[in-house]
């Protein structure tokens, strides 16, 4: 296999099927590494990574930080809450200040769509997009694909339903793009107010009935209702959302074949899925979390590999 075709991971949109395959295959070997008694390899010992989080995040930041540390990279963390951004500094200035301390890679979460792409054009570091607004979240899509491949065996021909708050989700778009590239069949399902109108133009099924969706799919990826991003009322009440789109054990027990249940977290127990479903044998939610570290190690390894040391 050859190297990645890209120098940055800005979105699934820029990757081809070979890149995705390479990342997933490399992640398989890193998953073995993180299950060893000593879970650390020295590969990135001469790389420094800056984690820039201009938006709150717990699990993604932790997952990236663990991935970096397990690869022996040096890590600096930066969060907007306590930063000079509040004092009026521009994004490029902030990042260039950090890069002048000899940082090789930047993992960035930013509220503005395309922030990573902007940065990649202006600074000399490998950029990993850890979520840009409601645009893309490529490492989440990669770890979801890895988890599906692990649970089902293949992505090609697997039917995946992405259910819930599609419109506010960066996970949804990255997942749709990735799954399509790898030959999976994709459906999005949610209330009409939470499914963007353009979705059918991506060549996927659009459904508004939960029962139809779970009868069709092999894998149900249940998205969180993002109350914090909802500036107006998209549905009458939580109780009504739960009645229409909440996944319960009764749903799963009534199905003819078992399906795999995923959730990118954090879970609103009792809203999009019940506690019983989240803790059932159908759920691979905690596998997703573990796989997230392995997939992020693979991404960092493959991007670092493209930053060749000059002999000069």
């Amino acid at each position: 296999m050859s190297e990645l075709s890209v120098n940055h991971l800005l979105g699934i949109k820029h990757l081809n099927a070979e890149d995705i395959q390479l990342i997933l295959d490399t992640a398989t070997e890193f998953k073995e590494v993180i299950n060893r008694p000593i879970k650390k390899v020295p590969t990135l010992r001469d790389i420094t990574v800056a984690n820039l989080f201009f938006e709150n995040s717990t699990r993604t930041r932790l997952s990236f930080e663990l991935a970096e540390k397990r690869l022996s990279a040096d890590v600096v963390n930066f969060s907007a809450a306590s930063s000079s951004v509040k004092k009026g500094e521009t994004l490029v200035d902030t990042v260039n200040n950090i890069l002048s301390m000899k940082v090789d890679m930047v993992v960035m979460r930013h509220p503005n769509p395309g922030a990573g792409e902007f940065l990649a054009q202006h600074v000399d570091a490998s950029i990993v997009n850890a979520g840009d607004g409601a645009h893309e979240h490529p490492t989440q899509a990669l770890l979801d694909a890895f988890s599906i491949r692990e649970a089902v065996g293949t992505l090609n021909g697997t039917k995946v339903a992405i259910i819930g708050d599609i419109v506010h989700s960066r996970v949804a778009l990255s997942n749709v793009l990735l799954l399509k590239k790898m030959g999976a069949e994709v459906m999005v399902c949610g209330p009409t107010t939470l499914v963007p109108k353009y979705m059918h133009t991506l060549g996927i099924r659009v459904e508004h009935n939960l029962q139809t969706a779970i009868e069709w799919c092999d894998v149900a990826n249940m998205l969180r209702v993002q109350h914090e991003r909802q500036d107006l009322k998209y549905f009458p009440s939580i109780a009504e959302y739960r009645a229409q789109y909440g996944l319960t054990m009764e749903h799963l027990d009534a199905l003819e074949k078992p399906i795999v249940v995923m959730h990118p977290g954090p879970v609103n127990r009792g809203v999009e899925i019940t506690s019983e479903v989240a803790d059932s044998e159908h759920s691979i939610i905690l596998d997703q979390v573990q796989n997230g570290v392995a997939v992020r190690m693979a991404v960092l390894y493959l991007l670092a590999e493209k930053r060749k040391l000059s002999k000069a």
Partner: protein
Amino acid sequence: MSKREIIDARALNIALNRLCCKLIENHGDFSNSILIGMQPRGVQVLDRIVKLLESTYGVQGVRTGVLDITFYRDDFRRRPGHLQPNKTRIDHLVEDQNVVFVDDVLYTGRSIRAAMDAILSFGRPAKMELLTLIDRRFSRDLPIQPDYKGRQVDSIASQRVEVLWEEVDGRDAVLLTDPE
């Protein structure tokens, strides 16, 4: 590019048998030993040695593993192209065990340096040894020498030494390839 056979199937078989006998001398019933095949080409040597130990010398139940050293290499980002990792499978605890690394060709010694680093992620072995089928003499970059060697080969840096196996390549042989 010219290729010539420097070791034939018969000589290879004699060398493998001799390696097995030496291993038995030092490791007895192998109850405290683990043989580790180095990915990718050492795995084939390991398979042959285990089969010979079982079929010809009656040593059963030898514990084995395979180790990939990609993430421990010292030339990451220093060589062109992509370094593709292979499977690592070590199902036994190496703590306080005698570990024998098994590889096909020993050249600069850098892979073995990486292997010694890598195996420590699985515990602290009591002892580490190195078995190589072919030892390319006078070509070491590091102070590493084999404990068990099948045959020694004199070669220059521009040449390649390649071990063929019947199971994979159709015949047993060792080839020396000269550049044009």
